[in-house]
C-alpha cells in the first residue's frame, strides 16, 4: 500500500511532499495498515488540526501547523510529521481493526474522549520509537480529566496500554475524570 500527498508543491510553506510520502509509507509498514492513504495538506492555515476519513482509501486532512517546526515557522519538521500522521493513522487503524465500533464519529468525540484516545495513540507511538514528550500529553490529559492523582493514574494506564477496546478506554478515561461509568 502507498501514500499519496497533495499538493505536490507548496507555496505558503516550505514543505516537501516526497518527505511526507516517505514518512507515511514507513508508518503504514510499521502499523500494518493495508489500505492506501491520501494526505491532503491545507497550507493556507497555520493551525494544526488533523481529520481522518476512512473509506477504501484513508484520507488524512492536515492543517500545515501539524507538520511544522515550531522553532522555524513555515519549515517542515520530520518529528512533527511522524508524530501527527502517526496519531491519525493509529486512530484509523483502531477503527478499522475492531474494538472501536461503538466509538463516536470524530466530530462527535468530547474533548475528554479525544484526550484519552490521543494518549493511547501517542503512548503506542513512543514504544515504536517515535520521539514524543510524554509530559506534553500528560498536561493535555490533565486539562481534560482534572489535575488530580486519579487522573494521573488513568493517564499512566492508558499510556502503557496496547489492544484496548473503545469501551475499555472510555472506562479508564471516565474513572480518571472522577465520573466512573
Amino acid at each position, binding site marked *: 500500500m502507498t501514500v499519496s500527498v497533495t499538493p505536490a508543491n507548496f507555496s*505558503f510553506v516550505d514543505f516537501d511532499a516526497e518527505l511526507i510520502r516517505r514518512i507515511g509509507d514507513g508508518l503504514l509498514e510499521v502499523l500494518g495498515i493495508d489500505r492506501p492513504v491520501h494526505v491532503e495538506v491545507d497550507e493556507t*492555515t497555520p*493551525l494544526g488540526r488533523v481529520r481522518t476519513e476512512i473509506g477504501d482509501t484513508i484520507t488524512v486532512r492536515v492543517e500545515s501547523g501539524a507538520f511544522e517546526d*515550531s522553532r522555524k*515557522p513555515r519549515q517542515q519538521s520530520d518529528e512533527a510529521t511522524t508524530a501527527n500522521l502517526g496519531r491519525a493513522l493509529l486512530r484509523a487503524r483502531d477503527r478499522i481493526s475492531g474494538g472501536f465500533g461503538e466509538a463516536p464519529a470524530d466530530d462527535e468525540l468530547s474533548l475528554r474522549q479525544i484526550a484519552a484516545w490521543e494518549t493511547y495513540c501517542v503512548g503506542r507511538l513512543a514504544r515504536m520509537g517515535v520521539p514524543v514528550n510524554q*509530559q*506534553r500529553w500528560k*498536561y493535555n490529559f490533565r*486539562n481534560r480529566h482534572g*489535575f488530580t492523582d486519579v487522573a494521573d493514574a488513568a493517564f499512566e494506564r492508558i499510556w502503557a496500554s496496547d489492544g484496548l477496546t473503545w469501551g475499555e478506554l472510555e472506562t479508564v478515561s471516565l474513572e480518571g475524570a472522577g465520573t466512573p461509568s
Partner: protein
Amino acid sequence: MRKFFPVDSLARDSRFNQITMKQSQADPRSALIATEEKRPKTNRLQPSRADASDAARSLMHGIFVGEIQALEGAGRTCHDFETGTEAPFALKLDMARQAWDEARHVEISVKLSEWMGTEIGQYAENTVLFEAACSTDPVLRLAGVNRALEGLAIDVFTTMKEFGDIAGDPFLEFCEDWMLADEVTHVKMGSDWLRRITENDPERRKKALEFQSVVDKIFSFGGTRSDSQESPIGLARRFRELAGFSDDEVEDIADVSLRALEERKAFARQAQAEAVEQFSAS
C-alpha cells in the same frame, strides 16, 4: 561593558531560534482569515478550545522569552545611562528591582513550561520586545517597555491566570497571579517615572506617549491582544486601571489593538493572494 546593546547580539544558546516581527508578519498563512467552516468560533485562549493545551504551551513559551528580554531591557537601563545626568539613581534602583523580578519570572516560566511539557527553545523567539528597550532616551524606554510591554504582560498574565483557574491547574493559576502582581507594579513604576521626569517638559512627555502608542500597536501582535474574541488575549482593563492607566488611555489601547487586528487580516489576505499568484505563475 558595552552600552546600548543591539538586538541581534543577545546571548542565546543553540536551543533558541530568533525571528523578527517582520519575519513573523511575513507568514502568508493566517487563522484569522479562514473561511467560516475552518475558523474556530473564538480565538480567545480558553480551555474549551480544542487546541487549548498546545496554545497555552506556546503562549507560555512566549512569556518565557518575553521575561528574558524584559530582564535584559531593565538591566540595560541600569547600565546604559549616567546616574544623575541622564537618569535619577532612584529610577535605576527601580529598574534593578524590576530586573530581579524578571529573573524570578524567567525561573517560574521555565518551571511552568516543564510542567506543561514544553522544552526551552521549542518555539521561535520573537525579539520585538527587546527592540522596544533599545531607545536612547530613558523616558522612551519607560513608555515603551514599562507601560506598553509590561501593560501587554498584564493582559497576557490575566488571560493565562483565567485559563489556569478554569482548567483547574493550581500551579498555572497561582504562578500567573504572582507574576501579574509584579507586572502591575512595573507598569505603575513606568507611569510614575514618566510623569515625574517630564513634569516640566511637555514636549518630551508627548514624544514618550507617542512612542508608547507605536509600541502598543506593535505589541498588539497583529491582533493577538484586543477586546475582540478573534484575539487570543483579552485586554485586562481592571488591572490596567490599578497600574495607573486612565480610562482614556485604556480606550486608546483598545482602539489601537482592534485596528492592528484588522490590519493584520488585510495584510494576510494580500499575502495569500500574492502567494497564490506566484504559485499559479510558476
